[in-house]
């Protein structure tokens, strides 16, 4: 069950990348290759756990399954504040 450490590593690298935006991150896209040795449903379960704790905010994990051994984070969706800028 290395999916938990992988989920935690995804959380860590996303926090590093997003900084304070992490609290407004609504979804994260992850490619889990068919030959990556990662079990997508286990990873999804673990990401749900990681993303339910601060600084995360119930963020949704969107997993895709390309061919090959790729295993990477491909996008973040951040909710923007729509207040008019002056």
């Amino acid at each position: 069950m290395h999916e938990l450490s992988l989920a935690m590593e995804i959380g860590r690298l996303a926090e590093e990348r997003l900084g304070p935006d992490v609290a407004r991150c609504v979804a994260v896209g992850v490619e889990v290759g068919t030959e990556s040795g990662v079990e997508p449903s286990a990873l999804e379960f673990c990401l749900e756990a990681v993303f339910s704790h601060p600084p995360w905010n119930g963020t949704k994990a969107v997993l895709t399954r390309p061919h090959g051994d790729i295993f990477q984070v491909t996008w973040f969706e951040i909710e923007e504040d729509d207040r008019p800028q002056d």
Partner: protein
Amino acid sequence: MTVRKIEVRERVMARNDELAAQVRARLEAHGIAAINLMSSPGAGKTTLLERTLAELAEPLDIAVVAGDCQTQNDADRLAAHTGRLVQAIVTGGACHLDALQVNDALDHIDLDATRLLIIENVGNLVCPASWDLGERARVVLFTVTEGEDKPLKYPKMFEKADWVVLTKTDLLPYVPFDADRAVQNCLQVNPRLQFIRVSAMTGDGMAEWFDFLRRSVGPLARA
């Protein structure tokens, strides 16, 4: 509220791979060969290492890092066979070692006085395969009681390995295990694999294992 999308390409294993490169460079600088020993639980990693340390700990300047989910039983078992350092890593439930843990363990080892580092990974035929530890060679132990089909069921472990050690060969008369078919299954997954057959109990084949280790090491950096 609008949603902004940020496109990235961040490999999840990138940090471990960076740390593994760091471990590799550190070992290289000291001329140390590192072997990552993996298998399912109970395949005989610790027993093989006990025999190895009793015979070669001093001649080959071996240091050991022993990983276990819980307890440091293995490190204690191994330390009984050598005055040289056996460094325990307790993963606290995690199913594999990672490069950060190995890098930290190196801080406790006299690298100048070491030529061969053997890492006993956590017993598991799946997870450790994904973590590069900075090793020079990956050795998988495959027991004759496991069934010939394990390389086909756990291909990644065998794909990434360099050597397969078939263990507990003293049990061959008692189990319907076809060793040649087991080897064929390994080769089907990874044609580059090389094989050693041992029984740590009777000592059969141990000379071949010792020769492999002797060939793996270079001269002592501090000599």
